[in-house]
């Protein structure tokens, strides 16, 4: 498998379409070594393997490869194929018609059928809280967001971050920059330096594998940063104040379980804070950098979000 991390994901090519075992596949847009979006999904896949004893497999597949990869897995008797991104939704719905015994689920996306659908991770909620925390922590009143590619999922989280910052401190300035690439650490670093150079002192990223450049730039300029997708609080740069996290494991396991026991119904399922799929995790090591009262305010907002009292803006895509 693309993960290559060990013997955990090997499977035999001897494919039996019959139900020799419960098999789950994951398609990712980037390498699962990206320490971000794809890595997070890979953890979910590993959880499926561990908790359900499933045979799992994954492949990086983009654009023209997507349909073919989906069909291949279905053909080999895979019961669940997760496509980790909005771009897998359309192909999944389409391919699902030909393979009724396989369920195709994308992360984000709007289309669905009896055996196809989507899980929408509400990472915006985490970003909203991060925006609040950032605004309340910032001394300069300027925040920065650094993105890799300019895609709707990232834009939506940035909007939520900005909304959270506005809510906490109206009139605060939030800039956004995109490097266009997930792999160019130096570019992420330079984009961060440029944003910090214009006065920002707190930065959040959606740069996946290039995120180290964001953290290092923040460290160099004495700024603070937020982690994204995975819990990045222990990053050696020591500047990560908190992380907006997707906890894919329970969501993926629940999904796989529903497929395994035949109860999967299709549709688009929002997995958010109240479901335990999104979290906002403080870095205890940097607790001293958080102004007093901020933690409590964030806790309150978190509770409000979970209780449905606070609606975080989320784009549909």
């Amino acid at each position, binding site marked *: 498998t693309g*993960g*290559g991390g060990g013997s955990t994901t090997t499977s035999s090519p001897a494919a039996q379409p019959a139900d020799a075992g419960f098999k789950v596949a994951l398609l990712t847009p980037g390498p699962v070594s990206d320490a971000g979006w794809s890595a997070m999904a890979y953890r979910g896949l590993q959880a499926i393997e561990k908790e359900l004893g499933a045979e799992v497999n994954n492949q990086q597949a983009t654009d023209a490869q997507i349909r073919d990869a989906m069909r291949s897995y279905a053909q080999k008797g895979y019961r669940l194929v997760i496509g980790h991104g909005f771009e897998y939704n359309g192909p999944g719905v389409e391919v699902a018609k030909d393979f009724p015994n396989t369920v195709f689920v994308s992360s984000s996306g709007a289309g669905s059928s009896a055996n196809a659908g989507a899980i929408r991770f509400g990472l915006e909620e985490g970003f909203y809280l991060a925006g609040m925390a950032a605004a309340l922590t910032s001394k300069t009143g300027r925040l920065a967001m650094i993105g890799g590619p300019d895609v709707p999922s990232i834009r939506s989280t940035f909007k939520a971050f900005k909304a959270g910052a506005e809510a906490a401190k109206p009139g605060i300035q939030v*800039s956004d920059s995109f490097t266009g690439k997930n792999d*160019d*650490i130096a570019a992420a670093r330079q984009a961060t330096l440029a944003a910090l150079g214009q006065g920002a002192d707190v930065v959040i990223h959606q740069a996946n*594998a290039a995120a*180290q450049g964001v953290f290092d730039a923040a460290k160099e300029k004495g700024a603070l940063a937020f982690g994204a997708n995975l819990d990045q609080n222990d990053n050696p740069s020591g500047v990560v104040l908190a992380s907006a996290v997707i906890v894919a494991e329970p969501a993926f396991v629940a999904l796989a379980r529903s497929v395994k026991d035949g109860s999967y119904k299709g549709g688009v399922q929002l997995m958010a804070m109240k479901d335990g799929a999104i979290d906002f995790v403080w870095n205890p090591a940097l607790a001293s950098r958080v102004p007093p009262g901020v933690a409590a305010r964030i806790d309150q907002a978190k509770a409000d979000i979970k209780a449905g009292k606070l609606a975080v803006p989320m784009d549909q895509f």
Partner: protein
Amino acid sequence: MIEALVGLLRFAAPVAFAATGETVGQRAGVINIGLEGMMLGAAYFAMLGSLTTGSPAVGLLCGVGVALTLGAVQAYFTLRLAVDQIVVGTALNLFALGLTSTLYRARFGGSGQLISVPRLPQFGPGLDAALVALPVLVVAAAWGLFRTKWGLALRGVGEYPAAVEAAGYGVARLRFQATVVGSALAGLGGGYLALGVTGSFAENMTAGRGFVAIAMVTFGRWRPAWVLAACLLVGWVDSLQYELQARGLGIPAQILIALPYVLALVVLVAVGKGTAAPAALAVPYRRER
């Protein structure tokens, strides 16, 4: 101000190192399309070296060593077998991309952690040893090319190799030496990207810098100092576009990201026809028996 300049220098340094080496190479008639692959291979092994030994200096050496190894492969094919340089370079790029990505995934793929390794120690306004070495290397390259006997023979090889051969100096040997200089500096560039700029690694993290370095050699008219200036100019435009993005001017990011490439193209078009290009650039040399 000084720090901003040093910051710019650091951002431009990986390309500048590689372009300086490529200038020496092209002067000898060697075009190294595999520069990107050499930088990427160097970046990975520099990171690995720094990670395992804890010494960024050792890491940098590992990077240079790997680039030299790829350079030796390149030399074997282009010099011994007289295979077209562009063919070999293209294959080397593929090779390095595949190799580093596969190794990286095997070793770090499942961790979900960002890589962070010891960076080169900095002093003063953010300087480090390699950064200080950069202008020295540029001067050394210029000196070597234009003020030494070796440089005369090397430039001759890039212009009309048969004449240098007739003068008694092996074309293959000189081109090999140019390849060594070129790949060592490519290794320094890739290693510096990993250990001087980012202290990290990601698959394909060079993101086209090797190709840009090749273009910068033409931009700088095959003169080390001008090539350095070209790298700094394009690096400056590249960091400027992030400033513009952060200012939120509403210009689409994609257009800004394309800016440095468009600039380089426009300058090349404006500079136009020149006789500066070594006449035997990319021409395989086969000795008549």
